[in-house]
């Protein structure tokens, strides 16, 4: 290994990268745009816009609506004057929930009968809809229970309110804030995307340009060339990581509970996977377009299987097995573990070991495949 040649390649790559303003801008801004978009767009299941058609207009109906509002899952944005209004608001997507209270609501309650209240939800997003429905059911039940107790007392019976107090705990993310879950995931995703793309293009471009043929006929060795190209990319990767972390902490108020140092070390291990993958693709693809298509073929399923959106634990067994073949799965687990749960190596060592194994295998294959030949 001739370090002077490694450094020569690195300096050349630095120069080329920072002279290409468009690539610099794309590389530096894309992670931020992704974090901001995912951070804000990640659907929050609380405060769902709700339209109400209250035909009862009584203290009783207002009590029920108040119970709904207190759950924080409904935000009464619109009032309707007809069923048509309700349907239209949901059809248009202005409201996700429609609540209709019939005119005889209070009367039926006083007659100790069971009034019917309609709660209609836009179930396009099944998770949010399921939550809204069960919260509505629970809110109505508790109102009914309180009414029953009051009526019994009024009839002279001595009753004590009996209930089962279910204390819920949302561990690690007590505020149930979606961005706390999403932002570390975006960090992992962006690191994978940027690094594989940059490493792939730096080699494929050189092949397309024809300069690779000149380097083949020179004393430089494959390892020196690849290492020289990786050094600037690792710098760029760490710049990206740091900006995303700063944004996460100071903009989205996502606290980093674990060791930042461990996070940086893990990212270093992950570099071998991503940069190795990019290099591997560049040894197979002949043109940039081909390389982009090949890398998409890998990046897309790896995003879906890694648990970035759908939790691995909820996947069918076959897909769970497939997800263990995706290095991003381990990286994501570690990143979320460090940032959200604040756990350390004692919990994450097995994940880190597997990630290291993957990185070493992918990188070694890439270097071995990258022979100093043009055929």
């Amino acid at each position, binding site marked *: 290994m001739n370090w002077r040649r490694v450094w020569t390649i690195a300096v050349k790559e630095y120069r080329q990268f920072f002279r290409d303003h468009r690539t610099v801008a794309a590389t530096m801004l894309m992670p931020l745009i992704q974090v901001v978009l995912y951070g804000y767009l990640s659907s929050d299941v609380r405060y769902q816009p709700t339209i109400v058609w209250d035909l009862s207009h009584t203290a009783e109906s207002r009590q029920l609506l108040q119970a709904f509002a207190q759950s924080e899952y409904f935000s009464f944005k619109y009032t309707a004057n007809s069923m048509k209004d309700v349907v239209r608001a949901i059809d248009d997507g202005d409201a996700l929930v429609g609540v209709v209270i019939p005119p005889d609501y209070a009367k039926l309650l006083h007659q100790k009968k069971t009034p019917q209240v309609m709660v209609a939800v836009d179930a396009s997003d099944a998770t949010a809809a399921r939550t809204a429905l069960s919260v509505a059911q629970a809110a109505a039940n508790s109102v009914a229970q309180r009414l029953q107790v009051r009526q019994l007392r009024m009839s002279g019976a001595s009753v004590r309110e009996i209930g089962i107090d279910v204390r819920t705990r949302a561990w690690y993310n007590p505020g149930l804030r979606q961005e706390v879950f999403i932002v570390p995931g975006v960090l992992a995703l962006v690191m994978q995307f940027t690094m594989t793309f940059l490493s792939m293009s730096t080699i494929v471009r050189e092949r397309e*340009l024809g300069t690779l*043929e*000149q380097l083949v006929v020179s*004393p430089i060795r494959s390892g020196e060339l690849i290492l020289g190209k990786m050094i600037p990319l690792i710098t760029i990767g760490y710049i990206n990581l740091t900006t995303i972390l700063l944004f996460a902490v100071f903009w989205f108020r996502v606290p980093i509970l674990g060791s930042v140092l461990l996070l940086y070390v893990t990212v270093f291990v992950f570099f071998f996977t991503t940069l190795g993958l990019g290099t591997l693709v560049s040894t197979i693809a002949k043109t940039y377009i081909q390389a982009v298509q090949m890398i998409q073929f890998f990046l897309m399923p790896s995003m879906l299987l890694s648990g970035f959106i759908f939790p691995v634990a909820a996947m069918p067994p076959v897909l769970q097995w497939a997800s263990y073949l995706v290095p991003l799965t381990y990286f994501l687990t570690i990143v979320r573990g460090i940032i959200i749960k604040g756990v350390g190596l004692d919990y994450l060592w097995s994940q880190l070991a597997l990630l290291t194994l993957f990185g070493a295998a992918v990188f070694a294959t890439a270097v071995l495949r990258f022979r100093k030949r043009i055929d």
Partner: protein
Amino acid sequence: MSEPRLAIEIAGVTRRFGATVAVDRLSLTVARGEIFALVGPDGAGKTTLIRLICGALALDEGELRVDDVAVTREPQRVQAAIGYMPQRFSLYPDLSLMENLQFYAEIFGVPSRQFASRAGTLLADFALAPFGSRLAGELSGGMKQKLALACTLIHSPQTILLDEPTAGVDPVSRREFWRILYGINRGGTTLFVSTPYMDEAERAHRVAFITEGAILSCGTPEELKRNLRGDVVEVACAERGDARRALRSEPLVRSVEIFGETLHALVASAAEAIPRMQQDLLAASIADAKLREIPPSLEDAFVAGLAP
């Protein structure tokens, strides 16, 4: 240790790409200090042969030595010693002229003290000195070509291989480029140049005609022309296409090809063939044809070699 007499030794080299044989049991030697031209049509195997010599491609059979070092055994040593300018020599367009030069100097391990003087000499010789800080992508075609050559020469190689170095370069730049190549050769450097241009081959010390991966003939330009079996008859007329068709059916004419404004016909004996050819042309109602015997050019020699 005595200096090896041969710069390049190629012995029975074969390279296949799937079913096609790009280079077929080819043997050739290039002496030190020679300008050697490899001439042949597109697809003859010129580029493959040069890539094999510099170890960029693996050979299937045979033996290849450059400055007495076996390419198959020590490619790294050969690659450090030679200069190679591929057909599509590319510079880094986003680096300046000087940065490109420095990059190759460092890759080839030129000490930085030597680099300053070596770069200075090359840039002065190539009239590139005023453009040191200009981005390579903003240089003219001819200047790019010269910078590519300067990058190839930065580590003072004793043997350089150039694959069609003047393809796509304007005639003035081509002439200047060859002036520079002669200068390098006077300094003792061996040049192995592939070219599709016969006028460039005429400038070489020795020429090899290559077709379908094999050497057709090899020698000095004079030898090749002298070895041509037969005479060349030049036919000047207005309707060259008709004349060519008329002469093709003449049994005394071995081949007839269009050469710019005239036709060149290859015959066994000019004295015997010219009257017959005149009759053939008149029979085809071509009255303005002027026929004369001319000394063969290198291209005639090449065409004669290809003719059955």
